């Protein structure tokens, strides 16, 4: 179980300071869920942790990432984005094996060369209820099935840290619930950071819930929902917390709009891509 710390993270977009000297701690083996209105810098924060930030003229950032065991985080975190990012020309199985193939010495490694990993991938697909769909191409799968393949690909890497940027946002409500349960079950014991727009998702899945708000953005003190995730939906305390968080987010969003013309609210993600 790996603790992760991000220290003194700051980001300026053009002349605007998005956040400054921000500290973030992810307790090992726990789920941390982060909420915040759009443009507040959540995505940039998680991309910093994943090592995906590139220098550019308009975006300046800095921050120190450290792990509980003193070794670098680079290469030890799995990444799951809002889009499933499945390669459309590869079958579900080949997508799960993507990491193996990209790291393999020989470029045109056949599946037989990866037989051991292939068996493991099939087990994962089976656990996620996708065994019959292993040979299908992504466009032959539904949105939920695709995101499950992406989850299998993430699990295949078997990394101690998993960073997820709104992985369930594009799914319908029922599919989202099912995937939340699967993810909570399969990622148990790993250090997870989940960015989400959905307060219910955050209070259901998070051991702690953080909210990034204000300008420059700050982290509110962590909220610890009662019980262990994944929490049952009919728990009235959960719904009360959701309502409280929603009200808070709405207030933030109104506050943001007053402080900043909505036209020049930058989309950090796009600016840096």
């Amino acid at each position, binding site marked *: 179980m790996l603790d992760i710390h991000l220290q003194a993270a700051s980001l300026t977009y053009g002349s605007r300071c998005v956040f400054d000297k921000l500290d973030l701690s992810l307790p090992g083996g726990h789920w941390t869920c982060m909420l915040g209105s759009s443009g507040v810098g959540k995505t940039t924060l998680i991309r910093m942790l*994943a*090592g*995906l930030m590139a220098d550019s003229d308009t975006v300046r950032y800095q921050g120190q990432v450290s792990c509980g065991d003193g070794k670098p985080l680079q*290469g030890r*975190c*799995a*990444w799951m*984005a809002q*889009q499933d*990012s499945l*390669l*459309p*020309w590869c079958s579900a199985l080949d997508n799960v094996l*993507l*990491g193996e*193939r*990209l*790291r*393999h010495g020989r*470029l045109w490694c056949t599946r037989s060369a990866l037989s051991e990993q292939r068996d493991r991938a099939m087990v994962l697909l089976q656990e996620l209820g996708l065994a019959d769909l292993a040979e299908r*191409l*992504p*466009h032959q799968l539904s949105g939920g099935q695709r995101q499950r393949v992406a989850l299998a690909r993430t699990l295949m*890497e078997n990394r101690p840290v998993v960073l997820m940027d709104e992985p369930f946002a594009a799914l319908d409500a029922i599919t989202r619930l099912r995937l939340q349960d699967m993810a909570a079950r399969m990622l148990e014991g790993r250090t997870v950071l989940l960015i989400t727009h959905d307060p219910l998702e955050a209070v259901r899945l998070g051991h702690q819930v953080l909210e990034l708000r204000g300008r420059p953005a700050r982290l509110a003190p962590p909220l610890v929902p009662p019980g262990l995730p994944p929490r049952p939906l009919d728990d009235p305390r959960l719904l009360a917390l959701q309502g409280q968080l929603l009200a808070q987010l709405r207030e933030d969003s109104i506050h943001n709009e007053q402080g900043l013309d909505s036209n020049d609210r930058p989309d950090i993600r796009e600016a840096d*891509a």
Partner: protein
Amino acid sequence: MKGWSRPLLAITGLLLLWQLVVTGLSVPEYILPAPVAVLARLYTDAGLLWSHALVTLAEMLMALVLGVGLGLVTALCLLSCTRLRIWLLPLLLLTQAMPLFALAPLLMLWLGYGMASKVAAAVLMVFFPVTNSFYDGLRHTNRDWLDLASTLNARSRATLMLVRCPAALPSLASGLRTAVVIVPIGAVAGEWVGSSAGLGYLMMQANARLWVDLLFAALFLLALCTVALYYLTDWWLRRLISWHKPS
């Protein structure tokens, strides 16, 4: 066969109109031969036409293989070496800025009277759209896939071959379709400048002797080859990138 019926109808209609104009206005044969006369030529001179068509077809196919290969390699070079790009791009543009019809005599002077000069001329036509489309495709790989590859600790060569290249296929396909259609221009231009075989050569000879029906027959065969090549390529590309769903 529904897809074929309309073009077939259009072509038949056009031929009918052509025949009507020629007979109705009694246009002399050396200006515009009737379609019936062209068809007769295609039948009587089938052996002659076919032997020349084979030469041109061979030139076109060789130019496609070489031109596409050269285009792919150039695009990969442009992508991987930033320093090379600065030097290579103007050079590439230069080859396209000079009209092929001005270069063809030079190519003949350098490469001789045979097939090589025609193939070279056709390669000049083909490789640019291939380079351009492939390079464009390589540069615009979905950011999410590259992010993913980077978090998977991918080797950069593996990312290129397993992510960037396949992702560039739809873009490359449009370049290949263009290439197949313009490759006869290079081959025929080469043959016009100086040759002893090929449909371009036959057309020059027929034109000089006012055998306009033979000229049309050769033209028809050239168009047939190009259209067949196009549909074959299109069919193959569709199968190859069946995963690609245009938005």
